[in-house]
């Protein structure tokens, strides 16, 4: 399990800047929009799995918060790209994020009860940490459109809040 978790993190770490640095170019605005939107969809999918699997009140409440917030942010992102006439462009980072998330979801699907709750919340902490690192170090500095940059900056504050919230839930589960 630890190996698989590390593999997922390694895949997600493509986002953290190293992936872009190695490929020698910064992501474009259409790619950034796609990555940010994908990151939101991934967390919504994970939360919906938690809502259907968990019976822990705090875990389900947290998952509902994730669905509500990420849907609201993604709606705002879609409105913005429409307004800016930008078409989000699929890219290797989005693909590896989705692949890692699908693997993680399959892994979590096999767990139940307290073991599932702990694994889901631990992954939420790790996932938000990774996405926040990517926003801070790669996506926000690379974004050229000021409105897109602004949305990403607000997104970072929201997801930092989610990370703290997830850390709090994790403490309660111990």
């Amino acid at each position, binding site marked *: 399990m630890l190996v698989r978790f590390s593999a997922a993190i390694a895949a997600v770490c493509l986002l953290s800047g190293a992936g872009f640095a190695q490929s020698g170019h910064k992501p474009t605005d259409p790619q950034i929009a796609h990555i940010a939107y994908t990151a939101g969809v991934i967390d919504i999918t994970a939360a919906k799995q938690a809502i259907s699997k968990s019976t822990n009140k705090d875990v389900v409440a947290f998952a509902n918060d994730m669905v509500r917030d990420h849907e609201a*942010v993604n709606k705002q992102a879609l409105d913005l790209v429409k307004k800016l006439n930008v078409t989000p462009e699929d890219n290797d980072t989005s693909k590896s994020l989705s692949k890692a998330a699908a693997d993680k979801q399959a892994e979590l699907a096999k767990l139940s009860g307290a073991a599932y709750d702990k694994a889901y919340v631990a992954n939420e902490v790790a996932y938000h940490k990774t996405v926040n690192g990517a926003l801070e170090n790669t996506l926000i500095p690379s974004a050229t459109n000021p409105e897109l940059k602004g949305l990403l900056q607000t997104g970072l504050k929201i997801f*930092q809040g989610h990370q703290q919230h997830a850390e709090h839930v994790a403490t309660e589960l111990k």
Partner: protein
Amino acid sequence: MWPGRRLFAFVAILGAGLVPAHADTIRVVIDKLVFSPAEINAKVDDTIEWVNKDILAHTATVRGDWDVTIAASKSASVVLKNAGAVDYYCRFHPNMKGRIIVAPR
């Protein structure tokens, strides 16, 4: 008739006596996950009204005490009942913090 009028006058005076000490409503705006002003001074019986400009729901929560949910693009309020300083935060985004210093009336 007269006793009634006198009673009315008495109540009116009593009411007038309370008016100068009327409670205030203090507004705190939430914009991009920031409470502003972050720190406010108030008195017991004052109302704090949070105006949420974000697209997300937030809360103003005092651990072990009151908890107000402020829906996206809506307002919500609380009447301060006790003197003292309270730190509050948003349960959904614990990186959002505020403080209210409540003086006795």
